[in-house]
């Protein structure tokens, strides 16, 4: 067809010569926004990222991604109070993704399969870590990954800290703790048990350490006097929990009252239940709405028969009873005495009024500042007043939880690493949060959360067996796939399909996309129709 009629007959696709890109006033750009789950995670996990791999059934890849931030997924999948799920955008749609369940699944898989994490080449630097709790273990792990040598000094007989001595077995089976600690040791981390450090400088010098991380935790219980009540029958939660961890069975009598409204109080109550005591009573000065314990914990405890005496203060006691005063909350939600009293029968009282770190011995260390409450002051790099000495976990001010400690461990490790290399660490800049309004939820199909199996009540009340079961591979996969991938492209091809100008280039399945700005007119359809809000429209620079 060489003599095609002039002008009226044209060659196919010849309009490629017409670059419509110059119509554009706004330009689309791909961005990875910070998903709410990641933002909320105290351990700084990139949850969306590891779920992305889990969605494909690539569990080890998912686990490796997880291990970038958290060395103990099996533990966190069980004990973390998962603020990520409260933040999850899917909650606005049907139910939040059950992140902790998938995390636990991955953690258990790793233990079962014996998955390992690679370490960087040795740096020759040696770091002292005091305390083998979550904070200490986390720091040690991350430093080891970075190639540093780490030695942990643990005062207790076993590693794990509060994970072992503060959280009952029925929530965290000990073989899980052992497995994840063992994995950290297998990375070259030395743990010296029963070795309490009393003189930091001496220990540092003797071990020729280049830096130290203090994570002693908080093991000193707050105590109060109960007038008229035999002090021998007043125990504290920390001691009680440590005792039952061993073989010892403390003498409590038949009727036990627990004083406090935090998660520890609940842990204690439920443990006591399992020791076969009479109905356990929890006494707390404020009401259920103001109790620091998690609602789920309270409900589970009630299911197991624990009774609650809200708005009560222990005034005094005698041989077999406690006199409690009724309290009332004022506008500020503070409990005020009412002058009305009642008595309840109790053979013993366990105080769950919080703990503090035993940091007295550190007062001698120059530059290191110990606060009134025993916590230690650290700067934004987690370093104490004394150069090279860092601290974290329950012994520094702030929220006290396994996950927070683990997160601080990572943070400290990064700064310790920088300190050892004589550099400074700064967090990379992100693209801003991926809030719910970023999403085009029409594209998401409804899918209810997968439920984890629960142990039946009888066994729960009579044994320390783990209450909550794990997901099987199928559930875990489906649960992972409920993730909306907020703010991060998951290769759904929408942008590629909805561009009226074919100005989106698909780089191959799973390889994401590029814009062809020669033709993109900047209509914004791609951004509008991106389900997860991973495309921003930005002003064209002219």
């Amino acid at each position, binding site marked *: 067809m060489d003599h095609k009629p002039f*002008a*009226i007959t*044209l*060659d*196919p*696709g*010849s*309009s*490629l*010569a*017409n*670059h*419509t890109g110059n*119509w554009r006033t706004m330009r689309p750009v791909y961005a990875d926004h910070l998903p709410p789950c990641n933002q909320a995670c105290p351990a700084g996990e990139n949850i969306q990222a590891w779920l992305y791999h889990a*969605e*494909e059934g690539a569990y080890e890849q998912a686990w490796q991604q997880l291990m970038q931030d958290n060395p103990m997924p099996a533990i966190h999948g069980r004990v973390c109070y998962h603020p990520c799920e409260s933040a999850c955008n899917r909650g606005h749609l049907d139910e939040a993704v059950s992140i902790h369940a998938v995390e636990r699944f991955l953690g258990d898989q790793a233990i079962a399969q014996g998955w390992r994490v690679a370490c960087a080449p040795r740096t020759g630097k040696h770091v002292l870590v005091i305390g083998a709790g979550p904070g200490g273990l986390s720091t040690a792990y991350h430093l080891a990954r970075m190639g540093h040598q780490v030695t942990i000094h643990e005062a207790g007989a076993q590693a794990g800290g509060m994970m072992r001595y503060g959280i009952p077995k029925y929530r965290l089976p000990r073989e899980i703790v052992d497995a994840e600690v063992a994995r950290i040791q297998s990375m070259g981390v030395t743990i010296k048990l029963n070795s309490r450090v009393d003189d930091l400088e001496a220990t540092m010098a003797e071990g020729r350490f280049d830096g130290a991380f203090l994570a002693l935790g908080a093991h000193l219980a707050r105590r109060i006097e109960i007038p008229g009540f035999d002090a021998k029958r007043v125990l504290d939660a920390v001691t009680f929990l440590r005792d039952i961890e061993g073989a010892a069975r403390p003498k409590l009598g038949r009727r036990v009252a627990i004083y406090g409204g935090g998660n520890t109080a609940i842990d204690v109550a439920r443990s006591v239940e399992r020791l076969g005591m009479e109905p356990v009573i929890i006494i707390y000065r404020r009401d259920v709405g103001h109790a620091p314990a998690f609602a789920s914990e309270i409900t589970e405890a009630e299911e197991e028969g624990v009774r609650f005496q809200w708005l009560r203060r222990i005034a005094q006691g005698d041989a077999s009873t406690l006199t409690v005063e009724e309290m009332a909350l004022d506008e500020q939600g503070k409990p005020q005495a009412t002058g009305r009293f009642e008595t309840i029968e109790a053979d013993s009282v366990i105080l769950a009024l919080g703990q503090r770190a035993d940091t007295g011995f550190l007062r001698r260390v120059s530059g290191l500042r110990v606060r009134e409450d025993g916590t230690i002051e650290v700067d934004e790099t987690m370093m104490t007043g004394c150069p090279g000495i860092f601290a974290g976990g329950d012994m520094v001010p702030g929220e006290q939880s396994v996950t927070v400690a683990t997160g601080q461990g990572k943070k400290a490790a990064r700064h310790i690493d920088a300190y050892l290399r004589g550099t400074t660490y700064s967090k990379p800049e992100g693209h801003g949060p991926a809030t719910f309004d970023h999403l085009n939820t*029409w*594209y*998401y*199909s*409804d*899918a209810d959360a997968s439920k984890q199996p629960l142990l039946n009540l009888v066994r729960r009340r009579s044994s320390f067996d783990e209450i909550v079961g794990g997901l099987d591979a199928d559930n875990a996969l*489906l649960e992972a*796939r*409920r*993730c*909306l*991938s907020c703010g991060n492209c*998951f*290769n*759904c*091809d*929408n942008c*590629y*399909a*909805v561009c*009226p*100008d*074919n*100005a989106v280039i*698909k780089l*191959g*399945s*799973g390889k994401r996309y590029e814009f*062809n700005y*020669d*033709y993109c*007119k*900047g*209509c*914004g*359809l791609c*951004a*509008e*129709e991106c*389900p997860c809000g991973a495309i921003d*429209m930005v002003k064209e620079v002219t």
Partner: protein
Amino acid sequence: MSTERIKFYQTGTFTAGNRLLDEATRTVQSRVDRTNSLNSGHRACQGCGEALGARYALDAAMRASRNQLIAVNATGCLEVFSSPYPESSWQIPWMHSLFGNAPAVASGVAAALRAKGRDEVTVIAQGGDGATVDIGFGCLSGMFERNDDVLYFCYDNEAYMNTGIQRSGSTPPFARTNTTQAVADHPGNPVGTGKNVPRIAMAHGIPYVATASVADLHDLERKVTTAIGVQGARYLHIHVPCPLGWGSDPAHTMKVARLAVESGLFPLFEAECGTVVRSTPIRRKVPVERYLELQTRFKHLLGPPQDTNAIAAIQAIADANIVTYGLWG
């Protein structure tokens, strides 16, 4: 199991592709090797629904016909923005003759192919609502009545956009156009006017009639593929928003189309030999206001003061569709 699982997929099957779906359940538009029948460099407005609808329909048709396809185009936006000398955006054999004769020209192409024994080639005719429901209607009806082997795509943007937004037989009641202005006692397009060409097509008893929307790609492609598999006259009426004519944000083209479907104003159904055989259920029902409020052509209804009667009348149309076509899943 896999079909059971799809419900749980991140995005179900509603996105164009998704790496978690197996190839077969992804759309043609998600494929790297799609034809791009209407290629880059065309002069359609930003966010043009018709450009999108045309590429969706033709790419699907190309795949279903193993690239053995000839398309005839009526005069209109699609033709003007795609083929101004010296550049054409078409990657397929394509012809434009006149405003009112696309169906007849296509019948001619089909006749020629039959005469030459090239039955493997599919013939497509396409045009906007003006070319289809108005000026080309005689030829369309003739093509139907003869049951010529032609698949007709009507890209319905509900007015004459090429000439600058004048009222067509497909303009919805109350809509403002430059010939049905929002003035006087009964602003916009008079109620009780206009024609439903899919129903009229069905009345011809042709083997396949369907409606589709750019907002539901999977549904659209399935219907095109079905149509290609059928012999004789076939009609596909595709709803394609026009940002210019509707006064909607170019970025909202999909959203507006989606709301037309989800409100029930644009029912998605299929008919065989004159009888409705399937309809696509509404996923998340919305009141018509959600649809209207995104378009300035309905601004005069939303007020203030709001024309509650008008809105009620439009809602009634949507509700009637939901009943007529059983749009509840």
